[in-house]
């Protein structure tokens, strides 16, 4: 089974985000980055399938030169090789999906497994767009995946329960939080990963125009939270709810 997985470089979700003074982006100096946690889960799942069924896991990353770190992380987890599409800034979801289409055409994997969304912009679109462009089946928000010959049985997290779908392969699966707990790479794997191949390409090489369809015009920090206070009596509470909270 040949599986294509993604590894997006995102701002560490535990970092404190500061909006740039021009409002068009966030401060990236002294910011920590890591592989998108949902992608990490997708990589882990692909590796488990590979360990069970054999095959190959290819990690794709799109972004600046630094995005290689995250591809390398996927390789140290155990993926076989990497593809790095160099791009100055992060392309929008649609461009990413079109880039992945080209890679799928070149690699013809049995499955594309990716995080349900990147935790930086939270768009949650790539898996769906990709399946549409490829004309493949899609099973998004997977919390369990089992492979049976040419089909995949996927348990999807839906509101208030689990939906079980059978999907023909090749297909697109996006990973949800509870799919697995990603491994911590062991040292020999980290060393091996240093020597694994990462093929570099540009969107132009693939004939993809990455001009954004979605342009971020303004980012703003959420209003500062004020500390709570303890009111003296009910009358004061009612007054505060009416005048300050404006809820009654």
């Amino acid at each position, binding site marked *: 089974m040949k599986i294509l997985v993604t590894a997006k470089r995102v701002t*560490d979700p*535990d*970092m*404190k985000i*500061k909006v740039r003074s021009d409002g068009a982006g966030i401060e990236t100096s*002294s*910011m*920590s980055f*890591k592989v998108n946690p949902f992608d990490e889960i997708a990589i882990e799942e692909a590796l488990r399938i590979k360990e069970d069924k054999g095959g190959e896991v290819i990690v794709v990353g799109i972004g600046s030169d630094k995005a290689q770190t995250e591809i390398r992380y996927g390789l140290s987890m155990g993926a076989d090789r990497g593809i790095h599409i160099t791009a100055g800034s992060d392309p929008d979801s649609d461009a990413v999906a079109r880039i992945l289409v080209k890679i799928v055409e070149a690699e013809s994997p049995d499955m594309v497994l990716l995080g349900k969304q990147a935790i930086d912009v939270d768009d949650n679109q790539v898996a769906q767009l990709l399946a549409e462009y490829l004309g493949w089946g899609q099973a998004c928000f997977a919390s369990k995946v089992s492979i049976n010959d040419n089909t995949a049985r996927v348990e999807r997290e839906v509101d208030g329960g689990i939906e079980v779908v059978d999907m023909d392969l090749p297909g697109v699966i996006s990973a949800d939080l509870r799919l697995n*707990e990603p*491994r*911590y*790479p*062991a*040292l*020999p794997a*980290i*060393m091996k990963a240093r020597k694994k191949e990462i093929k570099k390409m540009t969107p132009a090489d693939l004939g993809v125009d990455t001009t954004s369809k979605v342009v971020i015009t303004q980012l703003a920090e959420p209003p500062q939270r004020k500390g709570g206070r303890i009111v003296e009596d009910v009358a004061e509470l009612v007054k505060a709810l009416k005048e300050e909270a404006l809820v009654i």
Partner: protein
Amino acid sequence: MNPFAMGLLLTISLLAFTFSVVRRFLPLFVMQSDIRWDNPKERITGVFKYFFGQLRFLRPFERIHGMAHVMIFWGALVVTLSTIQMAGRGFVPGWHLPGFGDTGLGLTYIFFKDLFTFSIMAGCSIAFINRVIFRPSRMILSLEALIILNWIFWMMGMDLLYESTLFILSPNSPETHVAFLGMLGKNILMTAGLAADSPITSQLHAMGSWGHLILGLSFLNYLPYCKQFHEVTSLPSLYMRSLKKKGELTQQNLEDEDALFGVGKIEEFSWKRGMDMYSCAECGRCRANCPAYLTDKPLSPMALIMDERDLLKKKTDHMCRAALHKFKKEPEKAVEVLEQWEGDNLIGDVISEDAIWACTTCGHCIANCPLMIEHVDNIIDMRRYLVQMESRFPKELTQFFKGCENLSNPWSLASNTRGDWFKDLGVQTPEENPDFEYLFYVGCAGSFDDRYKKVSTALVGLMQQAGVNFACLGNDEMCCGETARRLGNEYLAQQMIGSNIEQWNSIGVKKIITACPHCFNTIKNEYPQFGKHYQVVHHTEMIRELTRKGAFKGAKKFSGKGPVVYHDSCYLGRYNDLYDIPRDIARFIPGVKLMEAERKERTGFCCGAGGGRMWMEEKIGKRINTERFEQLAATGARTIATACPYCMIMLDDAMKEKGVEEEFEILDLAQMMLRSIEN
């Protein structure tokens, strides 16, 4: 004595002994290399201190049992000469060592021989009674130990019988003037009716000498099969003891891809660890104060070494064969033989993973082992294997490792808020104050933990008051890597250490103050492995120095909840010998009544957080911090003074769990000092 019989006895027993010893030592040759013969001067000094000097037995808390060992040990050194003489007399009647005999030296020796025969017999009796009747908790009541004590006792008894009957047979021997014990024996035997012309006397005399020799030589052959093998290994073991600093773990070479990044099989330990396994005499001094053992965790440092030794013994055949292949330059065959082993695995079957993770690295075991076995390093070897080779560890540690990797702090808190605590304190960064004298390296707890941020703040207050020229890195500061290293993640630790050194070099750091004994220890004792020596000062050292210079003359009466007890941090105390300095600060503060816990200083009891335990769940046995809190509370103190973030957090948690935060108060010495100034 019959020369033929004597020759036969000596030949057989010495050959058998040699065979046993070779079988014990051959396996060490397939174990990993370790240079333990550098710096001979220091090694010899150590041999005099710890082998001949028996320093680790002569401690005040040792009392009787340690003295018993010294009596037996020194006795054995002296009496062995007499045994050699006795064997020689099997061939040449009346033979003695050159220079001995009826000379001054010979007769002096006889006096001391009698003295030490008495000392051995008394020592054995004390040890026997202690083991059987008083049963100190550190010891196990093993049949083997009792057999050994009896064996030695009766071996000496036979020697005494030989000497006593000799004096009946030759009453004019000059030795009779010095051999007080032999004379006492003679008098008793003669009172009992034994005469010089009685055949029984000659028979008893022969029985004494043959008995002594047969017991001695059979004992020699028993050694390699029992804990008493330390008689053979202790001298080389102590000579080849570790000379690294106490607070230092060995540096792994992570560049060599074929190297082992930890120990998963018994033969992957260094040969010295193997020798230490043979050396362990099961005395239990290591576990007498082991926080894991005393709170019912599945770890006992003594059992750890004993179990490893048993595995080593079981694997002897394989390892001997592998060693022979290795000598014949057939490394592939050696590997093949070792791979044929189908018995127990080191990790899992012999040493449980729970035991490996239970260690707080408090260092009590190492500090008290008379044979200087390195239990903590032994455990770290296996942790390194589990983490680096197998990526197998308690799952709470995933967040720890990832937090250190991505955010350079174990809490996984935003690294760009690391310096927030000093926003309003007027603290300068190296950019703002490039001529800083000291870098105040705050550490993760001092930057992120609410309780310890107060300590950082107090220390800043004291330093500002005293006019110390310092700077803090703020958001640019990174974790020191201490805990990652003790959790076996050498790779991560080395990355962190490398980043810190690079950063500090770029801003010209020379002197560092830290309020965390873990940062302190690792920067002071481990960073030099990476080529960088900094002058590192723990904040208690700084405060005491400032106190001496009169910086805090305005200190007024300390207002606390009651008497104060200082809790020793392992990494400050046992690892860096800072026992008095923190206490000096407490004594300096007016109105402080300083109490001492029973387990203090060298035998201080760990808070339970070291070695990464802080970041793991403690599900087995009693909680270590609760145990320690109870010990401290039992002194009658109401203020617990600490000098370490881990200790403070652990004891604070224990206090809150007991719901006694109204009665007790846990303060760092810096906070106490500041409070008494601000009063």
